[in-house]
């Protein structure tokens, strides 16, 4: 073995250690909920952000097209779905990934200027990240008035009420909510139920204290208490705020983002900032809501795999065995998958632990070399959208990040290091 190879190996190890330290030092706090156009850098005019790696309108999957049409209608840039499609086909609406704007979005992930987003600040590094609300309709591609009515309530009542509460009480530290929720059977991706309740507990008194008018207060409390997926938008923004400081550590091969647009699955790697490594999006193994079957399903979609990127979601299945029923699996399967993730990561989290695994920390810092050498693909639990526009959520299940992304990234990394 040559000295150069040894030098390179130790340099990669050192860079990974630095990147991992940035991830484990993160301290996310919820600071605001604000219209995306006011806070998201570069989101201006007729522009919609979407999930996953970049993709033009013509190549978008059905669910994402439906979701984009929904926001064009909701922003009143067009008055009919047909008119919206024309605008999009003619290129009058700019489409860019959330990830290019420090943001993330669940499923289609569509974010337009008027849509309020959760704003999470990583206090350690001062960077901010954004995520739209998680719901089961418009972000899955449904664009009728019923689906858009939920966005109206979010913009007009729920988000302003929460914002008032936040301004009154100050930022909400998320580390403790997430840490406790992980110990209550959540994995913060497909099961954020406990975190949603804990968050509602915090915000109730804050909104009362902020003198939110009674009608808006009651409606918002109902929304917070009755929406088990409420916290997903917050956990995603938190995860993005934790992952972003890892970007750009020269020589590091840790993954800083995994995201899917329903056509392609993409990853980004610390030492190669700004580059996507993509492979065809896989299909999701899962269960379906009444009225829907496997043949209705679109391919894997959403920025929500940012939760797995920081060690939650599929990486903490062992602490949230209930979620594994999505694949007809067992608690043993959950434990096994969770242990598998140790094989492909650089370390464990000091803050986020799983009682079911003897309070072991979540596995964090996905190392592309280890994925390629073990063949173990990161596991992600996720929701399922229809392959055509116009439908709400149709199911949920498990999916694995395609190893092809990691192989491509490794080849490019080697090339840039001059060892190819």
């Amino acid at each position, binding site marked *: 073995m040559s000295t150069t190879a040894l030098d390179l190996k130790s340099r990669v190890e050192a860079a990974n250690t630095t990147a991992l330290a940035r991830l484990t030092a993160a301290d996310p706090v919820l600071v605001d909920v604000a219209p995306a156009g006011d806070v998201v850098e570069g989101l201006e005019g007729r522009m919609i952000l979407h999930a996953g790696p970049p993709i033009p309108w013509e190549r978008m999957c059905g669910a994402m097209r439906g979701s984009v049409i929904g926001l064009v209608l909701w922003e009143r840039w067009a008055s009919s779905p047909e008119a919206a499609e024309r605008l999009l086909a003619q290129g009058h609406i700019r489409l860019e990934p959330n990830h290019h704007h420090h943001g993330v979005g669940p499923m289609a992930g569509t974010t337009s200027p008027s849509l309020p987003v959760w704003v999470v600040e990583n206090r350690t590094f001062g960077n901010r990240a954004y995520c739209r609300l998680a719901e089961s309709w418009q972000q899955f591609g449904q664009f009728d008035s019923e689906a858009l009515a939920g966005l109206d309530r979010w913009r007009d009542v729920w988000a302003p009420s929460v914002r008032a509460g936040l301004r009154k009480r100050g930022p909400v530290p998320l580390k403790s909510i997430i840490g406790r929720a992980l110990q209550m059977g959540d994995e913060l991706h497909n099961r954020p139920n406990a975190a949603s309740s804990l968050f509602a507990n915090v915000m109730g008194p804050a909104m009362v204290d902020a003198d939110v008018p009674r009608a808006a207060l009651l409606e918002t409390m109902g929304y917070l208490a009755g929406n088990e997926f409420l916290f997903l938008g917050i956990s995603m923004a938190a995860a993005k705020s934790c992952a972003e400081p890892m970007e750009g550590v020269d020589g590091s091969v840790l993954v800083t983002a995994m995201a899917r647009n329903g056509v392609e699955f993409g990853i980004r790697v610390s030492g190669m900032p700004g580059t996507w490594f993509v492979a065809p999006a896989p299909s999701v193994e899962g269960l379906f809501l*009444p009225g829907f079957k496997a043949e209705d399903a679109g391919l894997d979609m959403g920025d929500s795999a940012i939760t797995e990127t920081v060690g939650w979601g599929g990486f903490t299945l062992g602490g949230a065995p209930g979620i594994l029923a999505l694949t007809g699996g067992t608690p*043993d*399967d959950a434990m096994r998958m969770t242990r598998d993730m140790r094989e492909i990561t650089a370390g464990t989290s000091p803050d986020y632990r799983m009682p079911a695994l003897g309070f072991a920390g979540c596995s964090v810092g996905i190392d592309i070399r280890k994925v390629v050498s073990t063949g173990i693909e990161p596991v992600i639990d996720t929701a399922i959208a229809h392959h055509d526009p116009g439908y709400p959520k149709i199911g949920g299940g498990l999916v694995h990040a395609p190893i092809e992304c990691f192989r491509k990234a490794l080849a490019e990394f080697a090339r840039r290091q001059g060892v190819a």
Partner: protein
Amino acid sequence: MSATSYSVRHHTYLDSVFLMRLAKSLETMPGVVDVAALMATPANKQMLRDAGFSGVDVDAAAPDDLVVGVSASTAVQAQEAIAELDHLLSPQAAVETIQRVRTWGEVSTALPRANLAVISVPGEFAAAEIESALDRGMHVFCFSSNVEARDEIRLKGLAHSRGLLLMGPDCGTSIIGGKGIGFSNAVRRGPVGIVGGSGTGIQAVSCLLHAAGSGVSHALGTGSRDASDDVGGVATIDALNALIADAGTRVIVLVSKAPGESTRMRLASLIATSPKPVVTCYLGAAGAGAAATLDDAAAQALARLGGAQATPNGSGPPSAVTHIEGRALGLFAGGSLLLEARGVMEQAGIAPSRFEFVDMGSEELTRGRPHPMIDSRFRADRIAKAGEDASVAAILLDVVLGRGAAGDPAGDLVPAIREATARASGQGRSLLVVVAVCGTEEDPQVRSRQEGKLRDAGVTLVPTNARAAAFVAEALR
């Protein structure tokens, strides 16, 4: 037409993921088209209505009520699915789990006393897994076929040198201490040990012994190639020695395809010095072994045990045989059963032009599709088509029961048998369908129930494969 049935369970909260799983298992029940299982929140009630489940029960349900709707082809099927709910929701229904690990290394902590590896990965990967198991001091049952001969030779040598038994590759059946591995029938424990490279041969002999009131001490499969001169009978010899030393074994049956010449000699000298009787049955090699058929092998074993042993499956085939013109088509799931039947035909002097026997489980016919013992569809197609063939006057079939086999193999074949018979009679011909079932009353499929289905389809049932072949030979003569 379809029918819908509902169950509303008041004040029953179940998680939505659990409910999706519940719906999925109900959807696998006969005739069930669609299942919705939801807590009756207003939004979910709308979803139920959108999915076509509506009615007074649903409208009246409260948010803390669980609603399960089933639509099925018939009302009875819908109700049966609803009834299954009670079972699925009972606390006892919690799945009994099998611990899963990722690596061989983890086995030593998960199950430190493990003494047997059961390997059924695709053939090209089997050798590596066999070696991993042998390295950990485990005996191996390898179901995988298509393992390179040189790997088998090397690994059998390795196993032998360590005192380990490598059953397979291409081993279908073993029974160790009453526990069946791979394809095996529910047979009583008893004084007869079985060794051999023929899976269905072991199954047939063990069933015959069971039917005669006797039973099996251990049955040790060795793999289809073990007795070839290339491999040299390494596993066969180790297994024979183990049974010779085994206190619970009084008589041994060796059932195999014809061994290679030098291997046959080695086996003969071992058997000659054995303190226990060894009955040999070499299928497809007339006169090479002591017993010409599996029936004969079982009968000789029983005779060697002494005492008044009943003849296995005493009731004979129907005696009034109609003479038939044309030829017989044999479609076999068990390769050894084919060899046995062919031996019977040859012995009876039936000209090769009068019968065509097809091994539906052969490598060529199972490439890209499941084995006929697991999935009958391909064989059923062949049966149905045979009804069109004017030259076919008789069809001979084996139906193999037991663990590992299809849940209702007779039921899977009956429609095709009826169709073949109908096609033939449409052309003014009669078609004789002769079937022997290999299995026991205690098997999951229940022998008598399988036979009943076949009998109702107009099949001539004969108790054993050899006698079924003899019956067809008689008809052809």
